């Protein structure tokens, strides 16, 4: 049940996989594969392909996201890449460049 937190000064170059929530305050490059929630906080930088159930982005993401449930791009969020998910929210103020696929 313990969350995984990548602190703001941490840089991970590689792959993170798991079955619990992941909070990114630092930098992750590579690949993220989860079954739960991914939260990229304001200070967080993700340069990775992401597969998970839910993604919430307040920081910066470069890469493609495949989400089983939902992707939320918040006001401070910046995202470059393609998003594939049944529900996608892009808040006012967020910046996004890429394709959106909702499986319509």
């Amino acid at each position, binding site marked *: 049940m313990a969350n995984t937190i990548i602190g703001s000064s941490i840089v991970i170059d590689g*792959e993170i996989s798991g079955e619990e929530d992941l909070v990114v305050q630092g930098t992750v490059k590579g690949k993220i594969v989860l079954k739960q929630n991914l939260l990229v906080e304001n200070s967080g930088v993700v340069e990775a392909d992401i597969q998970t159930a839910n993604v919430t982005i307040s920081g910066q993401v470069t890469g493609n996201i495949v989400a089983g449930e939902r992707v939320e791009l918040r006001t401070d969020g910046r995202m470059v890449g393609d998003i594939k998910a049944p529900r996608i929210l892009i808040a006012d103020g967020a910046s996004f460049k890429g394709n959106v696929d909702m499986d319509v």
Partner: protein
Amino acid sequence: MEKNKTMSSQATVIGAQTHVKGNLEGDEDLHVVGRIDGNISLTKSLVVDPSGIVVADVQVAKAVVSGTVVGNITATDLVHITEQGRVVGDLHAPRVILVDGASFRGNVEMGDMEAPRVAGAERVVTPKVARPAPASGSPSGPKAAPAEKPSPAKSAPRPAPPPKRVVEAPRGSAATSAKLTPATLEKRAEAAAQAVAARRKDPPTKKPDLPPAPAGKAVDEAGERAGTFSSLRPPRPPTTAGKKTKVRRK
């Protein structure tokens, strides 16, 4: 849960169900409850919880291992393996704490431990230099060759001195008596050649035998130093000679 929440404000946590593959670096504490495969480089501390698994080379200030680490740990401050900790790999740190119950396999290097051996080496060198002197002044072929033989093999100078003394006696007499009669010269030369041949056979057989060589050396030194009546003499020469050979042959 609560524990992890308090940690989360200051530290990075790799949760129990999370697996990280790759390099991880940073300037803050890292708690591993899950698993990391790869290299870890931190300026602060790494804490591996009892359920944590780290398969990585680790460079940190401080490492506290209650879980499993497979890989080398280099710490600028300390490595602490608790009673639940299991480590396979080399530890390199000025402070290493290994608690009762901890399991560990590997080398430990704390640094600055080499000084006494160097001092011992100097002591052994001095008698070595004094010894070759008597060999000089014999121009004849068979004698010159064996005299040089032991010296190139500096890595194992010990076997040489004891036989040298034995052979020196015939050599000196041969040199003086050679001028008197050619016949005796030949005989003595033959004897010397035989002695030389015997000597050539001897060192190779002695070289593989590690224990006899240092022991002979130690006895020689002890004999030399006996003249000085140094009260500290008996315990020291054997130990230094023993250490020296160990270091060299490895």
